């Protein structure tokens, strides 16, 4: 069990909606995406797999290289691969930006 937190202070475009996608099943995860109270993007991850902090940071850096919404992201993870993580994030964005 590992808790990871990342900040993306340059992602400040206001969002109004919120999204919940995914399920905490084996090899999958859930994402809660909602407007950040601080006005800039924040990510909080709770994962059952230890030792992959660098991979999480790489996926999040890549996600926020394209996405600029001021979102608070909460993730509960049961071993999703980096590809699945990115797909779940993009799915949540689809809901929020719809």
């Amino acid at each position: 069990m590992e808790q990871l937190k990342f900040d993306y202070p340059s992602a400040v475009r206001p969002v109004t909606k919120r999204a919940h996608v995914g399920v905490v099943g084996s090899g999958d995860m859930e994402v809660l995406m909602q407007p950040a109270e601080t006005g800039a993007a924040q990510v909080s991850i709770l994962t059952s797999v230890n030792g992959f902090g660098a991979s999480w940071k790489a996926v999040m850096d890549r996600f926020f290289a394209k996405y600029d919404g001021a979102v608070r992201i909460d993730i509960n993870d049961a071993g999703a691969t980096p590809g699945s993580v990115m797909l779940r994030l993009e799915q949540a964005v689809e809901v929020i930006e719809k």
Partner: protein
Amino acid sequence: MSATSVIPAFVRRHSFIELDARARAQSLMDPGSWRELVGPFDQIESPWLPMQGIAPQSDDGCVVLKGTIAGKPTVLIALEGKFQAGSMGEVSGAKMTAALDLATQDSQNGKKTAAVLLLETGGVRLQEANLGLAVIAEVMASILALREHAPVITVIAGTVGCFGGMSIAAGLSSYIVMTVEARLGLNGPEVIEQESGIEEFDSSDKALIWAINGGEQRVGMGVADELVLDDAEKIAASVQHYVKAGLPRLHRSKQVELYRERIAALDTSQQIDPLTLRESWNSKTNQGGAR
């Protein structure tokens, strides 16, 4: 030739099993009538799972919707089979019990409120031990209280099925709707094999398991009420039918003498085959459920 006449119905249907718990729940309510109670953004999670290195879920695998079905006030409680096999923990159990008890309160105050339970569950969440056992006892008490006023309808769609203490909760409900893919049983096949050996029950023998626990057999025996296809529209129609039907004349679980006599009459000197059991049990003497 139009596309609809070429593509067979089983391809065009909307699978219910492929939906997650929240989408299943939403597909059964009257459109626009419902709201979710204690949803994922409330983040009421299990405090016990992270202590054991297991990621929790923001709704603890339990979705509660309040609204109407067929125009009648209904609360719908769905368990997510993909999260910890739909097991009942302290939080998910408290959500289910509270929703059932509020429906009972509304019913007592003149607003009859039915309950629909979508049960995909292995029963108690072992990581939450006695708390899991306690909430299942509470769920049963809450079903018994509500079914005095309004029907409690259990839907088991699959593919987890309904086992353990929650199979008793299913048995207490007014009606049970199952698909061919669904299973209902007290002990899961793996548990029986583990405790009594592979000669007793081979949990890898799917034909054997479905012949005993499967929806076709359970409805055939008269211990469940309706067998439906894995089709969201058909399952919605069945649930609407039972919400409108109201209470059964006599709940199945009150027919103690009937089932005692049936069990006493079984010839256990030889292996009972599922088809024979179906033929001898599904007689017209069954007063509850199937109408």
